[in-house]
């Protein structure tokens, strides 16, 4: 639902970095998206195609690497991937957990020529 602004940021960051590198074309943008973040890759690509029109990023491919959710148990420090929506530690059963990974949304790298 809020991918348009996010995609604008992706285009801006990409064009700035490509400009610094004096690139003539952006081929691929590698984006890391956490499983828990509310962002939908297909939606970002859709907006990207429109927003990148007539820039050196037009036609670039967005590659998304999804980071699975990893939680850390506050009781026994076990790091685990929750199997369902009930977040309980597989080792000690505690439901006191914090997010270790899965909220990411960043551009990892940009491939240019």
């Amino acid at each position: 639902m809020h991918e348009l602004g996010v995609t604008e940021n992706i285009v801006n960051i990409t064009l700035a970095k490509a400009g610094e590198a004096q690139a003539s074309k952006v081929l691929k943008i590698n984006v890391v998206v956490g499983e828990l973040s509310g962002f939908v890759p297909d939606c970002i690509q859709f907006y990207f195609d429109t927003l990148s029109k007539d820039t050196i990023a037009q036609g670039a491919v967005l590659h998304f690497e999804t980071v699975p959710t990893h939680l850390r148990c506050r009781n026994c420090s076990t790091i685990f991937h929750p199997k369902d929506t009930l977040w309980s530690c597989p080792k000690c059963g505690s439901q006191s957990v914090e997010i270790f990974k899965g909220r990411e949304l960043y551009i990892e790298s940009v491939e240019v020529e």
Partner: protein
Amino acid sequence: MKKIEVVQNVLEANETIASRNQQLLDKHRVFVINIMSAPGAGKTSLILRTLTKLKGRLNIAVIEGDVASTVDAEKVQSEAKSVVQINTRNMPESCSLMAVMIESALKDMPLDNIDLILIENVGNLICPAEFTLGEHKRVVISSLPEGDDKPIKYPLIFIDADAVIINKMDLLPHVDFDIAAFRRSIAGLNPKAEFFQISCKTGEGIEKWCSWILKQVETHAMER
């Protein structure tokens, strides 16, 4: 082909503006609470109760975020020091307030005459979790008819909350809402969150909630 390492947070633009907002607010000694919930959980009712209860104690302004209409702003108009309505319908994002919207709302507010701003975010449990606005405290309301499983279904918004409120306590005899289970979920996700059980209809719990606000505002003013 050349690969450029970037590693830049895509939400950084919002976060930069949010921290600029907070600097401005701190300069004027204004405390800000971002109130979030699903549509209909009672954000406007809570704001109205808070305005009435704290009248004469604090100068309170309100920023109303809605996809469309000014109905909420009209409701709080008579009690608040200043009201700004933000309609997100024609903005790039309509599902949540963003720091840039607050930045422009603050320009229209007499900050030196305000102690507290209550921001009513767009009714939504997903998107507002991703965007900070420059607020000092984040508050999430769940109401009894929504069911006690919301922290399990929408963990992010509850994880970042400084306070969690259950509203519509007057409906408890009529709904199957397990308060203990809800509180266990919150305690697991976010053990530091303050917890309030209120009814905006009867006024239950409003006193305690408002005392908490007063304490936060005082502490903030002393730190400046």
